[in-house]
């Protein structure tokens, strides 16, 4: 009879793992309002404002991050930013320098609105849900998402560390290339 409390404690410890995350196949409600202005620089008039705390809904979701990785190749982000985010025609995504900011809403607006000198606008071409998955994956390239959820090593030859082994570094917003 003394074993029963132990078993109960064991069950309690194990059950939280069952609902660790959910796969969502249908559109999520938009987490950021596209019409709202997203600040792209730390310079602003008046008193300093707190940075935005909008997060990608897929920040802690392994399925969403894996989808983001798949879409990163499927939509040819890799064509300019490099397969592991190493950069080529476009700026590198795996380093700690961010021209338009490393916050989720800033990356979202970079993808949906496009940026001067080459980055096309994907609004109306990619559903918001997939943009959010890409946002989470792009953040994972710089170690900005949970390592528990980030994608693991590739099957093919590795050119860089797997995303779940990249550690967070202090992000710098450069505002220029």
């Amino acid at each position, binding site marked *: 009879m003394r074993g029963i409390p132990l078993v109960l404690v064991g069950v309690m410890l194990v059950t939280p793992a069952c609902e660790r995350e959910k*796969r969502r*196949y*249908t*559109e999520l409600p938009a987490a950021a309002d596209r019409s709202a202005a997203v600040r792209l620089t730390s310079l602003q008039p008046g008193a300093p404002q707190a940075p935005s705390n909008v997060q990608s809904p897929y920040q802690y979701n392994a399925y969403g991050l894996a989808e983001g990785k*798949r879409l990163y190749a*499927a*939509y040819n982000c890799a064509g300019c930013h490099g397969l592991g985010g190493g950069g080529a025609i476009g700026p590198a995504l795996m380093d700690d320098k961010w021209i338009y900011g490393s916050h989720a809403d800033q990356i979202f607006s970079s993808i949906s609105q496009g940026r001067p000198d080459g980055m096309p606008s994907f609004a*109306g*071409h*990619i*559903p918001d*849900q*997939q943009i959010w998955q890409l946002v989470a994956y792009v953040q994972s390239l710089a170690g900005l998402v949970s390592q528990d959820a980030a994608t693991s090593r590739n*099957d*093919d030859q590795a050119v860089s560390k797997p995303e779940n082994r990249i550690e967070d570094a202090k992000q710098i917003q450069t505002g220029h290339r």
Partner: protein
Amino acid sequence: MGAPLIQSVLHPAGVQAARINQLWWVMFWVCTIVFIAVVLAMAVAIVRGRRGASSATDATLSRWVAVAVGVSIVALLVLLTQSVLTGRGIEMLRDQNALRIQITGNQWWWDIQYLHTNPSLIVSTANEVHVPIGRPVEIVLKSNDVIHSLWIPALHGKRDLIPGRQNEIWVQADRAGFYRGQCAEFCGLQHAKMALTVVADLPDDFERWLSHMRGPAPAPTTDSEIKGRDVIERGPCAMCHMVAGTLAGGRTAPDLTHLASRSTIGAGSLPNTRGNLAGWIADPQHIKPGNHMPAPGLTSEELQALLDYLETLK
């Protein structure tokens, strides 16, 4: 599609499937006879054992064991010979003049290309293979993501599609008809809805079909069709889908150039009707949860115009 869709090893439509079918029946009858013989021998032993001590001498017992071993060896040799003959028969098709088709497995659809030395004559389609009857076909098998397996029971056995390497399988259809193929290696959430249709045509019909498939999509004529094409070109569709002759050039999803000529949508998920197509485009995740097509979020006018256009893509 009026004709029935056949997916059965026992209704072969090609030389190889016929040989596999023959082997199946030989195995079936040999195993049936062995099973009946074993059950009978066991029944006799039980009945005699209950009557009292056996009067058989050691010599009789040895004779029966020898007979049983002899029969087993003969049965196994029959199966072995038949199996070797079948294996050789299946591999006999290789031919210089074979039609070459490349099938690439994707989660969860089949990308089909009719290979040609001239790149402008390569035909690209999805989930529906046409083959001429009486001519060997070499199918080159590749995969873009995980291991799949091509199985068209009416034509041949299974062959795996493995990422990073190339497999091949030779088939030949001898009877015109519609045959269903299916992915035979568990490949993820929608493995069950990863089917393909094989249409075996008369050689003339096949050549006509192939030359038609080489052409681009027909130009839209009505206002609604033109609007539908604009939806494809300027909306989300072109990110993944290809419609030859328009600006849509995506290559990560099925080629839509001749969508209306195919009998199913969603890799055999539903018959290709306007209603099903509308339901699919409005919410693909409802019909095939987890597939890689997101809901494009079109307005109802855009959707109707898109359907008008897609229906012209014969």
